[in-house]
């Protein structure tokens, strides 16, 4: 069954607004045990959201202290040893407890079943188990921090970490080992769900691009995470039993650790960013009222990134003593991964072309993502180039590069997702003004924080050093000032989103006039999502003709709603307007 599109685009009948549910997933059961023992994918998503937010605050505080210390060339507030432990805490908490689980665990859990028309994930109990495993692993890491921290950097390079460090390496490494299993469980669950539980009509060619991204991410999680698990086990074996694996003094090879570690940890970068790319495909179509440009290219580029991402790891090791020939090979392979990433960026930009763009908070975060991720990606090519990397390796240039990708890319995509789906998750609308203000402040603060770091790195300031020459101070002060703006921008959503729970307007079922199946349920949804199994009749982004995936008309998008409003159905470029957009129905 497929939707029939005549020569002229048309607007389907708009379904009536569903009555708010008396019983939804939030109030179906009450009490703390109803949360701790839930197998509802949406509630587990909320459990992850609360946990991740807490760890994001902890990791952010550590970053703030690092930046404050760097205000002075000799270290403003910490000893050198304390500084080592602080930046390690920032890295470990942000990577293992926030960035890696973030979108898959929160929005993947919550929205993958809803977007494919399913009642739940394939293994609901495994889903709950994944949260508990994550919390147990996080407990070990908190133990390592409270007991004095780790001073090795988040990469835990031996032989320092395995033989000589006097800090709490074991609980930290063991915690990372345990949280890895949580990642595997989530990946397995999502992969099986996408394969087995799509509703009728939801073919692979009609899957929302967020689902394609989550599927590609699951592939990396399943294949890569076991490798780092066994690597950390070997590290602990060497540390606890003195068996020579990585320490050359007892017969080991430290470069072997780096091969094993980065074989997971570089693809882990794509575990972090690919789900964010999926979010961007959802928001950029919704807020430009257009079908995605190049659906298949964007979908397959997610898979391409997942596959090629496994072939590039040794660019982290160009100055670690790997062979010259191998370095050339990995330099070339690293360049290759830019191709699918660039395909996405070009297709998103083409999607914006002649779009009816509106600037709600999710779209502001999305546009900020586009700019910052592109800068992060292009500077990645500098580092992929063998000769340039030898100059820039282990400098602040690298720090700035990966923060442009991880914070400018991933965290902003996370915030875009949070603002886009918040009305569906909570049933409440947040402050339009303050959310736009937050997005703007974060964007400005981000630039102030990390652009000076490119300059610092280019001029040779190494990363992880607490001291620096006096001529670098102006850039460090600029960067710390930017970090304070950035921190303020991050605090704002904590306030207005929390306030929205109590004072926000009630959200309609489809407040953004979006096309996906998740918007065809009341806000907040019922425990089993859909009254009856939905039947999908068309692709995921038919904004130009104004129909959702069930073939029904879309409500008016937010905005003035007048004929001058380009996003309106009856606006100049709306589906019923005189200059309606050309489209090609996907699927």
């Amino acid at each position, binding site marked *: 069954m497929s939707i029939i599109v005549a020569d002229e685009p048309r607007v389907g009948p708009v379904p009536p607004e569903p009555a708010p549910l008396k019983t939804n997933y939030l109030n179906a059961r009450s009490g703390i045990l109803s949360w701790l023992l839930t197998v509802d994918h949406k509630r587990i998503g909320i459990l992850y959201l609360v946990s991740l937010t807490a760890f994001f605050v902890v990791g952010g505080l550590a970053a703030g202290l690092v930046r404050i210390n760097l205000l002075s060339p000799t270290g403003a507030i910490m000893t050198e040893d304390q500084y080592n432990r602080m930046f390690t805490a920032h890295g470990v908490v942000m990577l293992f407890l926030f960035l890696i689980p973030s979108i898959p665990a929160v929005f993947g859990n919550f929205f993958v079943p809803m977007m494919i028309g399913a009642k739940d994930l394939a293994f609901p109990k495994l889903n709950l188990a994944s949260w508990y495993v994550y919390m147990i692993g996080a407990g070990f890491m908190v133990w390592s921090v409270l007991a004095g921290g780790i001073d090795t950097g988040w990469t835990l390079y031996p032989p320092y970490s395995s033989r000589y460090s006097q800090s709490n390496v074991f609980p930290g490494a063991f915690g990372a080992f345990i949280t890895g299993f949580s990642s595997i469980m989530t990946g397995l669950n999502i992969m099986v769900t996408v394969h087995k539980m799509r509703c009728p009509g939801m073919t692979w060619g009609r899957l929302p691009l967020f689902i394609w991204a989550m599927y590609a991410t699951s592939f990396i999680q399943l294949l890569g995470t076991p490798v780092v698990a066994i690597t950390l086990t070997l590290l602990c074996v060497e540390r606890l039993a003195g068996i020579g694996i990585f320490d050359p003094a007892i017969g080991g090879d430290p470069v072997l650790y780096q*091969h094993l570690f980065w074989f997971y940890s570089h693809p882990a970068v794509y575990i972090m960013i690919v789900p964010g790319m999926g979010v961007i495909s959802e928001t950029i179509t919704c807020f430009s009222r257009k079908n995605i440009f190049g659906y298949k290219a964007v979908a397959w580029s997610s898979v391409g990134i997942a596959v090629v991402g496994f072939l590039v790891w040794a660019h982290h090791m160009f100055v670690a003593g790997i*062979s010259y020939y191998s370095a050339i090979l990995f330099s070339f392979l690293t360049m290759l991964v830019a191709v699918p990433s660039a395909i996405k960026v070009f297709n998103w930009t083409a999607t914006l072309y002649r779009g009816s763009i509106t600037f709600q908070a999710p779209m502001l975060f999305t546009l900020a993502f586009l700019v910052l991720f592109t800068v992060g990606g292009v500077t990645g090519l500098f580092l992929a180039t063998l000769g340039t990397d030898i100059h820039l390796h282990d400098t602040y240039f690298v720090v700035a590069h990966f923060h442009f990708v991880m914070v400018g890319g991933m965290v902003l995509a996370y915030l875009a997702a949070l603002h886009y789906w918040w009305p569906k998750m909570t049933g409440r609308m947040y402050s339009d003004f303050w959310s736009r203000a937050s997005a703007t402040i974060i964007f400005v603060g981000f630039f102030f924080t990390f652009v000076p770091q490119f300059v610092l790195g280019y001029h040779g300031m190494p990363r992880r050093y607490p001291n620096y020459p006096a001529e670098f101070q102006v850039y460090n002060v600029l960067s710390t000032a930017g970090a304070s703006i950035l921190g303020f921008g991050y605090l704002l959503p904590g306030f207005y989103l929390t306030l929205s729970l109590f004072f926000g307007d009630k959200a309609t079922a489809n407040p953004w006039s979006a096309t996906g199946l998740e918007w065809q349920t009341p806000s907040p949804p019922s425990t089993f999502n859909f009254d009856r199994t939905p039947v999908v009749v068309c692709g995921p982004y038919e904004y130009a003709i104004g129909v959702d995936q069930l073939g029904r008309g879309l409500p008016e998008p937010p905005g003035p709603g007048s004929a001058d409003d380009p996003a309106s159905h009856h606006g100049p470029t709306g589906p019923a307007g005189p200059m309606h957009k050309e489209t090609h129905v996907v699927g």
Partner: protein
Amino acid sequence: MHTEHKVDDPPTMHDVDSPGAMFLVFLVVLGLAVANILLATTGLGKLALPVQLGIASVQAVLVAYYWMHMRRGDQVVTLSALSSLFFVFIFYVLVLSDVLTRWRIAM
């Protein structure tokens, strides 16, 4: 009356391995682990690496075949498992591209 069991049908008791069989496989895997540890102390010389990797491979095959139910898996499951071997192959090739050429002097 006996009817043919199809792959898509729900599992029956016939499809489930007995606890005794699974425990036996577990003991064999444990025994091979002990053998591997003991062999490490015997000084096999150049044979140590192939022999011990061979034992480890047998252990992995036993776990995959019995504990991961590969022997009852359909073709897609078998293909997925074999593709993971290909993935390991890629890892080995690229690591060896470093290890085997590390000591050559660049032209």
